[in-house]
């Protein structure tokens, strides 16, 4: 094991296909046109000294260290800003260059502390390296002159000195060590796109400044870490490095937060994680990160983690710690007893979209082969199940069509019901980069998300529709495209069923779908809707990105189909820069769906009624699978309340907090006789559990995650599981306690079984993943290295299918009692139910969920900013503090759902998508009023949660 060192080429790669050849220090080197001489040199193996250049950002030419000489040209140009040209003869080391470089370094060092031995960057400092590289032996100027280094000179305060800024929980800014190379400022602009940093002052007074000379934590900084990564000195340093020291080995692994699936180097010292650094070769993130993946891993060693299995008879009892064997035996006995007493279909399981593909595969295998039924579901039920249904119906595959690189070729981006800068931040940075280069943006969202207008990004159109009217708006866009003749007839005739298109075109063309007609429903200005439709149809490569604002509606599946229709009608499928791209919520929600987590589907999206598919598994597993679909999560809970569903194994999901209509979920769980929760923490669901099996984090196991691009990325174990076992081992031991006789010794063997049984994964092996870094499924004989873009020569289902998408209003309606519409979303620093991020210092950015309400609605109700308010729906009520804003329109309120005390799902209802039962989280009719504090339910719930988390003290055997 060693530290993975990535080569810094100094300037970004040129994408030109024209190659040129030049000579550098006698070596001939051929590079794409537009490559800098610095980069060309590095490719030839010649390291030109540099400080202000790094290949994540454009050349800047400020440090004057990378100078070179070119035969036939005057002077000493900077190699970072000078493009390589055919036939140049370059010298990187001459007496003249040596003298200049040494002089430059003397100046730098004359204003830099000489505390190398005790400096956090010791061993990882480019300034130190360059001093060595140029042979600096002496600083003629001394250290007494004007400087930024010392707080005092001769007992007089030094005005130039600034104290260390330690306000950010994860990194420090020490202005005394800054060489003003601007790498951090440029990384914030070019890589992250936040523009939070600048250089204040001029000349010798220049310093890096967050915002207007603010502290980092008070500035616009989003703590993505790009500046820290770019800093060549100890000016910006991870606090973990300051505390622990430099790492000694590292492994490439995959982030366990959102569906972007960023690759990171986990840099270690022994089994201690020193820091997570985004990996430049990661194909999803290309060397970038966000605050969650980069810094928020502290939950993995948090004191709340439960490390021993626990059992209790009744949920009102305190927990009792037991051995693993006792826990497995207890679960096996209980599940078998329940099945004997209530029938084979009276138990089930839930797979986790946070666990690996291999772990998910095992849980569904345990249910199908061990429990002998198909009662398995996953949290995709409550997020992207409509994507699966809608894209399968129209295109033939339940997944997005592109890779993230595709956005670099997009001309018009349409974002519907997604908030990438908060939910999928690294993709948002890549998108903003493209937008700054001139791509146009259309945002369809009830709320004014950051992308509508943020530094150097402004949406061409924002359609602030009323929650619940997606189908009407997207169908109306199709109306404009068809009636104005903007559709791509050639594409449709070649790729789609022409008769179906004509049926659909006639449907959307009817006047009731015109923007003018739907304005009453959606509240969207018809002219703006027309402009948006025209722009999407005629603006070049058009790509649609969407999120849970599309799926979590009673017409979620219909909206997905409407989006697919739009992409087909405009010919935006099957090449770079276009496509339909669901932004998946959790790290492995794509994978958990791929692995057969849905009750009606075996791995690879093959219906359980298909005999030939069942046959493959029957033979391999030595069982006879039931040919009927099993229960989905909401159906399980209904059946539990009805008394026909009595036991459940839940791996890594907190249904009590994350599923809608909390009271109904609680009633379902309370009606069961054996609830087994397998998780890191005593989550909310565990309040109703009889058995708790401790889980492991992504740092503690091997496996794979599949991100929103269908990319299968390796997860690599960097430390031993604190609880003793990776989750796949726990599931295997449980299966064996039930007599299944499994003997997987490594997750790679589980992936081999997936490949053996599932055509779209046929070519996937750990060897291939180690070699290629990652692959996108389908990966098989036809596509041995995977499939970055789907439906290139035709749709997976043959012909693309146009489907009529009629708007059907949800039954969740506003009225006199509930006049406002509540919609929900995420914030950057927190993740989902917050079980992980609430246990990190990310809470400094978001301590509580707030209710966003328009000033008009607030005034009517006498609510001031920060007041406690009660929010009531047909399902229940809760309280939280108000935040007055004009981001939401009058009539719409918004909150996040990261904190269990908020209990946002007490108010969400049981309405759901017609096709998949995906809950309608995004529309709840509510009333808001002033309040004195927590509701009775919140107090009662808190007390119940506190009681149910008691762990009995272990009795000393000697007594």
């Amino acid at each position: 094991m060693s530290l993975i060192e990535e080569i810094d080429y100094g300037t970004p790669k040129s994408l030109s296909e024209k190659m040129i050849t030049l000579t550098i220090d006698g070596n001939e080197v051929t590079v794409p046109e537009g490559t800098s001489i610095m980069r060309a040199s590095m490719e030839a193996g010649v390291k030109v000294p540099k400080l202000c250049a790094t290949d994540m950002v454009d050349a800047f030419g400020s440090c004057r260290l990378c100078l070179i000489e070119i035969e036939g040209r005057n002077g000493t140009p900077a190699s970072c800003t000078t493009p390589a040209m055919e036939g140049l003869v370059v010298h990187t080391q001459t007496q003249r260059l040596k003298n200049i470089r040494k002089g430059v370094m003397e100046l730098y060092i004359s204003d830099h502390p000489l505390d190398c031995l005790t400096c956090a960057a010791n061993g990882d400092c480019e300034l130190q390296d360059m001093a060595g590289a140029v042979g600096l032996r002496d600083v003629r100027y001394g250290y007494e002159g004007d400087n930024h280094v010392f707080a005092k000179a001769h007992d007089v305060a030094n005005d130039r000195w600034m104290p260390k800024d330690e306000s950010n929980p994860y990194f420090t800014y020490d202005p005394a060590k800054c060489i003003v190379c601007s790498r951090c400022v440029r990384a914030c602009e070019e890589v992250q796109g936040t523009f939070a940093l600048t250089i204040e002052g001029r000349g010798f007074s220049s310093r890096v400044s967050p915002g207007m000379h603010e502290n980092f934590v008070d500035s616009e900084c989003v703590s993505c870490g790009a500046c820290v990564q770019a800093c060549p000195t100890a000016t910006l340093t991870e606090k973990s490095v300051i505390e622990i020291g430099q790492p000694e080995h590292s492994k490439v692994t995959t982030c366990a937060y959102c569906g972007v699936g960023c690759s990171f180097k986990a840099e270690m010292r022994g089994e201690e994680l020193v820091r997570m650094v985004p990996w430049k070769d990661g194909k999803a993130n290309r060397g970038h990160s966000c605050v969650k993946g980069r810094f928020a891993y502290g939950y993995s060693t948090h004191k709340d983690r439960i490390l021993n299995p626990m059992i209790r008879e009744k949920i009102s009892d305190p927990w009792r710690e037991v051995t693993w064997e006792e826990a497995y035996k207890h679960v096996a006995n209980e599940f078998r007893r329940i099945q004997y007493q209530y029938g084979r279909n009276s138990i089930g399981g839930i797979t986790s979209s946070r666990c690996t593909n291999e772990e998910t595969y095992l849980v569904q295998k345990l249910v199908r082969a061990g429990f002998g039924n198909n009662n398995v579901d996953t949290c995709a039920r409550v997020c992207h199940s409509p994507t699966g249904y809608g894209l399968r119906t129209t295109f033939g595959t339940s997944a997005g069509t592109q890779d993230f690189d595709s956005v670099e070729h997009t001309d018009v981006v349409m974002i519907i019901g997604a908030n990438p800068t908060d939910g999928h931040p690294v993709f948002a940075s890549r998108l903003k980069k493209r937008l700054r280069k001139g791509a146009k943006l259309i945002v369809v969202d009830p709320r004014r998300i950051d992308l509508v207008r943020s530094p150097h990004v402004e949406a061409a159109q924002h359609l602030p529709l009323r929650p619940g009217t997606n189908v009407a708006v997207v169908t109306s866009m199709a109306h404009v495209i068809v009636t104005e003749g903007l559709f791509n007839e050639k594409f449709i005739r070649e790729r789609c069923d022409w008769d179906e298109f004509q049926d659909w075109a006639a449907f959307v063309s009817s006047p009731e779908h015109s923007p003018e007609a739907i304005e009453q429903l959606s509240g969207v200005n018809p002219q703006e809707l027309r402009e948006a439709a025209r722009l999407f149809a005629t603006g070049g490569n058009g790509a649609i990105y969407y999120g849970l604002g599309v799926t979590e509606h009673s017409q979620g599946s219909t909206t997905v189909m409407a989006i697919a229709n739009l992409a087909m009608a405009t010919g935006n499928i099957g090449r770079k820069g276009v496509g339909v791209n669901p932004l998946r919520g959790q790290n492995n929600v794509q994978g958990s769906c791929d692995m057969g987590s849905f009750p009606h589907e075996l791995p690879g999206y093959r219906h359980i009624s298909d005999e030939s598919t069942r046959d493959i598994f029957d033979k391999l597993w030595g069982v006879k699978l039931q040919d009927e679909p099993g229960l989905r999560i909401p159906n399980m809970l209904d059946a539990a309340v009805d008394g026909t569903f009595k036991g459940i194994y839940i791996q890594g999901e907190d249904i009590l907090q994350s599923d809608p209509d909390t009271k109904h979920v609680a009633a379902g769980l309370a009606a069961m006789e054996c609830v087994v929760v397998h998780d890191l923490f005593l989550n909310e669901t565990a309040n109703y559990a009889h058995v708790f099996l401790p889980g492991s984090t992504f740092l503690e196991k091997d496996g794979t995650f599949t991100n929103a691009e269908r990319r299968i990325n390796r997860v690599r174990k960097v430390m031993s599981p604190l609880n003793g076992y990776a989750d796949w081992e726990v599931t295997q031991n449980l299966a064996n306690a039930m007599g299944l006789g499994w003997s997987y010794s490594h997750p790679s063997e589980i992936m081999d079984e997936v490949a053996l049984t599932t055509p779209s994964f046929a070519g996937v092996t750990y060897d291939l993943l180690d070699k290629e870094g990652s692959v996108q499924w389908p990966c098989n004989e036809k596509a041995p290295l995977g499939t970055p873009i789907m439906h290139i020569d035709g749709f997976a289902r043959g012909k693309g299918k146009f489907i009529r998408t009629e708007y059907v209003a949800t039954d969740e309606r506003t009225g006199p009692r509930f006049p406002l519409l509540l919609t929900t979303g995420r914030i950057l620093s927190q993740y989902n139910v917050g079980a992980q991020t609430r246990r990190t210092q990310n809470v400094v950015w978001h301590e509580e969920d707030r209710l966003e309400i328009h000033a008009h609605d607030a005034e009517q109700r006498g609510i001031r900013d920060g007041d406690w308010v009660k929010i009531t729906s047909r399902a229940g009520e809760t309280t939280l503090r108000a935040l007055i804003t004009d981001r939401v329109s009058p009539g719409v309120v918004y909150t996040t759902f990261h904190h269990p005390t908020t209990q946002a799902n007490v108010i969400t209802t049981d309405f759901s998508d017609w096709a998949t039962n995906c809950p309608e989280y995004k529309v709840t009719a509510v009333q808001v009023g002033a309040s004195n504090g927590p509701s009775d339910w919140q107090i009662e719930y808190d007390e119940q949660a506190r009681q149910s988390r008691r762990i009995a003290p272990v009795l000393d055997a000697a007594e």
Partner: protein
Amino acid sequence: MDSESHKSTATKLVYMANQIAAFFHTQPKDEAVAGVADHINHFWEPRMREQFFAILEQEDNGFDPLVVEAAKHIRKPGPVPA
């Protein structure tokens, strides 16, 4: 129970079936009946279909006529294997 959203499973099943019908009502006529039946066959667990048929026998069961028409194409669940 204590609030409007806590409906019985039977009420929910009728609602879900009618929601499916509402979608297929908007599809071409010849596909609607098969569409509803296929959807329920594909996604409803046997005990849900069992309840479905029990509700169907009641008068004023609340089903959309399209659901009733599709019912004859919906598979009757067999016995659960022991």
